[in-house]
Structure formats: structure tokens, C-alpha cells
């Protein structure tokens, strides 16, 4: 019995830490205070009607204001109307208000708000503040981490407004409000054991992305598997693919691949 307890203790002590740097959502944790992160993201989305590919390119800056607060700002470029052009931007603010940390685990919660402006045409009944709609989103994130595995949920309220440049919201007003939900699971696959900051980390993640419009009685549910590499403990490469399990909103571009690189400057100032 004693041997078993010692064995279990040794096993637990040899587990590395889990991963919550999700590809399609934000965890409740913030980036380090006084740090700056730069991201370049491209999503290649397949247009269901014509099988054409639309690219959405998003440069993004992240700022760890302090240990509770972080900000993101990004700009959207798209080639959906032909050549690549700038179509809008968004600001995102996240405030961590719960932290229950232990050596090999933590539970954290955060509130977030996101505002977006977009001047492109609106094609989808689903609200997307990352490239399609002007609007606002606010919600709560809860993230739990135990050893190698992280779980996170993200619940939000979305409100779409008219896009600028004369692109009004083309659907009924009741479609302007929706509820968003994301469930994410991430697992650290490599290295088996950490020895230094230069080791390449490999994380595997699966996320369920959904939106529900209660007034219109419409919903969608997407599955988004992804893998992530972390280099030199400061650079990230994300590769993901998103596709619908159920699409009650008849979206124009419901599936596609994501590629993102990220570089972090810790203690940048």
C-alpha cells in the first residue's frame, strides 16, 4: 500500500503542466504584466456555395496592462470582395477576477468585453465580431487546469450593429442579439518532461464553438481541432481547422483552416 502511495506521488510529481493557450478562444488567465504580444492570423474559409476560398488576415497586438487586465487590438483584412483590403478592427479587454492557484492546478475566471467596427458587407445571420460584424460582445470565462489538461468555458452575449460604409444589418432586428458558447480542452503532448526553455512544446486542443439566437430559434455548433507549437517559450504557431457539426444558421463560410503566429515580449517596458 505504501509503495502504491509513493508510486502515485512520484507519478503526480513528474507530470508537467497543462495547456490553456487556446487557438479559437481566450482562457481566463492573462498575459504577464508589462508584456506585449504580436500576432498574425490568417483564416482560409471555404465558401459553401461556390467552393471558393476567402482569406481573412488579422494582425493583432496584445498588452498585459497588469496582472488583472489585458487588452487586444486587431485589424481585419479580407479578400472576399476581390483584392485584400482593410475592413475593420476590434478591441478586446479581459479582467481576471478569480484565481485559485495550487502547485499543479488552478481555477480562474475572467470577464471580457469586445467591440468591433466593420465596413464590409454582412452576409451571415451568425454574428462574428472577428471580421464580419460591427457590434459588441461581453461574457465570462472560466478555466480549470489540472496537470497536463486544461478545460475552459466561454459564455457571452453578442449584439450586432449596422456595419459602416452603408452596409446595414440586412436581417430582422431580432437577429441582432445572440448568445455565444465555447468549450475548450487542451493537452500538453510534448515535451514529456521539461528541462529548459528551448524545448519545443506541442499542445493538442479541441474546441466546441456555438452560437444561439433565441429570438430566431437558430443555432450552430462547430468543432475545431487544433495543434500548437511553442518555440523558445515565447513564440507560438497555431494550426486549426473549424467545421460545423450542425449549422442552423446557413452560414456562407462555416468551415476553414486557421494559421497563426505569435511572438511575446516579456517585460517589454
Amino acid at each position, binding site marked *: 500500500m505504501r509503495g502504491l502511495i509513493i508510486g502515485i506521488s512520484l507519478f503526480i*510529481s*513528474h507530470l*508537467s*503542466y*497543462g*495547456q*490553456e*493557450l487556446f487557438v479559437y478562444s481566450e482562457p481566463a*488567465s*492573462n*498575459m*504577464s*504584466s*508589462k*508584456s506585449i504580444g504580436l500576432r498574425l492570423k490568417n483564416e482560409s474559409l471555404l465558401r459553401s456555395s461556390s467552393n471558393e476560398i476567402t482569406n481573412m488576415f488579422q494582425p493583432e497586438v496584445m498588452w*498585459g496592462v*497588469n*496582472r488583472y487586465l489585458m487588452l487586444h487590438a486587431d485589424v481585419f483584412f479580407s479578400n472576399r470582395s476581390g483584392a485584400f483590403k482593410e475592413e475593420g478592427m476590434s478591441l478586446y479587454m479581459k479582467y*481576471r477576477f478569480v*484565481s485559485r*492557484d*495550487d*502547485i499543479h*492546478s*488552478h481555477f*480562474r475566471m475572467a470577464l471580457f468585453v469586445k467591440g468591433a467596427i466593420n465596413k464590409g458587407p454582412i452576409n451571415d445571420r451568425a454574428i462574428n465580431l472577428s471580421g464580419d460584424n460591427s457590434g459588441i460582445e461581453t461574457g465570462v470565462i472560466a478555466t480549470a*487546469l489540472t496537470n497536463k489538461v*486544461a478545460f475552459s468555458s466561454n459564455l457571452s452575449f453578442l449584439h450586432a450593429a449596422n456595419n459602416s460604409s452603408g452596409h446595414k444589418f440586412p436581417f430582422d432586428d431580432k437577429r441582432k442579439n445572440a448568445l455565444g458558447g465555447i468549450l475548450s480542452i487542451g493537452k*500538453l503532448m510534448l515535451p514529456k*518532461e*521539461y*528541462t*529548459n*526553455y528551448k*524545448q519545443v*512544446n506541442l*499542445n493538442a486542443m479541441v474546441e466546441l464553438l456555438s452560437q444561439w439566437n433565441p429570438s430566431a430559434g437558430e443555432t450552430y455548433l462547430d468543432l475545431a481541432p487544433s495543434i500548437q507549437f*511553442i518555440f523558445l*517559450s*515565447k513564440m*507560438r504557431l497555431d494550426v486549426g481547422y473549424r467545421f460545423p457539426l450542425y449549422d442552423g444558421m446557413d452560414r456562407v463560410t462555416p468551415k476553414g483552416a486557421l494559421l497563426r503566429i505569435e511572438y*511575446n515580449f*516579456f*517585460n517589454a517596458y
Partner: protein
Amino acid sequence: MKKILLMVVLYSGATFSCFSQISKVTIQASGLTCSMCSNAINKSLRSISYIDNVIADIRTSTFTISFKENAQVNFDKLKQKVEAAGFFVADFKAFVKFNDVQIAKDTHSKTQGMTFHFLNTKDQLLNGEYWIKVIDKGYVTIKQFKKGEMYTDMECYKTGVAGSCCKTYGLESGTRIFHVSLMPNL
């Protein structure tokens, strides 16, 4: 009364006959998720000018910090740097040099610029380098901090600063006190 007199004698002796030097600190952080998070703490700690080197054990989230010569090490500053990276301190030990410092259980000893309140420690004369573990709030897990309450009734343990309980030692109200226990040599 006898105990109070002993405390005054111990405190006075400590004040005038000792000096301390802190050559090393080890911090174990809690709540880490990956090597990138560990690196965030590493970089945050290294932003302190008097830190000479940080050796990180990513697997155990432990950081061994060495300091430049004659550095005035500020424990609270080190703790803040871990918290600025988004994490917490779960264990904090310092390797401190004592020269002829008489310590006693549940009493205060002042060294150069720092006041230590020794808990759960035998009365003894310290001469040489010793590991001490800081058990103040925010320096250990919440569970461990609560456990520490069994070793003292003094209110300064809860606040981390001198209160009415510390007047016997001639400490000004609000003086920072680090509650510590002496570790066996690591």
C-alpha cells in the same frame, strides 16, 4: 514579565550585534501552465536590477535567484514580480547569513533593515548561513498560512506589519515583519 524582559534582551541583542546578507532565494510559484508561463516569471524576476541570476526548474516551477554583491534584497518586490507575471508564490526560502544572532520561538529579531518573527523554531544562537522559510500570507499556500496560526497569537502574523503586539520589541507600528521558520540545511 520575565518573558517580556527576555524578549527585550533578545531583540536589543539582535539589533546591535548582527548583520545579515541574503545570497540566495528560492521561489516556487503556483498555477503555471507551461514553459511560456515559467519564462514570463523568469523574465519578470530578471527585471529587478540587483538580481544576478535566475535558474528555473520548469518542471517544479522553482526559481533559484542569486543577487549581486551588497544587494538590499526586498522579499515583497520578488513576490510582486511573480504576481505581475500572473501567478502566485507557494513557497519562499532565503539563504541568510547571521552573525551571533540569538533567536527564540515566537519572538522578533531585527537584522539590517529587516525584521524577522521566528515561529516554530527552537531558541538558539545563529552564526553562519541558514535557510529560512517565509510563511507570511502570499508567500505560502492559503492552507499553509492557516496552519501557521497555531504557532503564534500575535496579530502581526495576519497583517505582516507591526501592531500593538509588537510594541514590546520597540517596533514602530506598520513596520514590515517577515514571519519565518528556520529550515534544516538544504
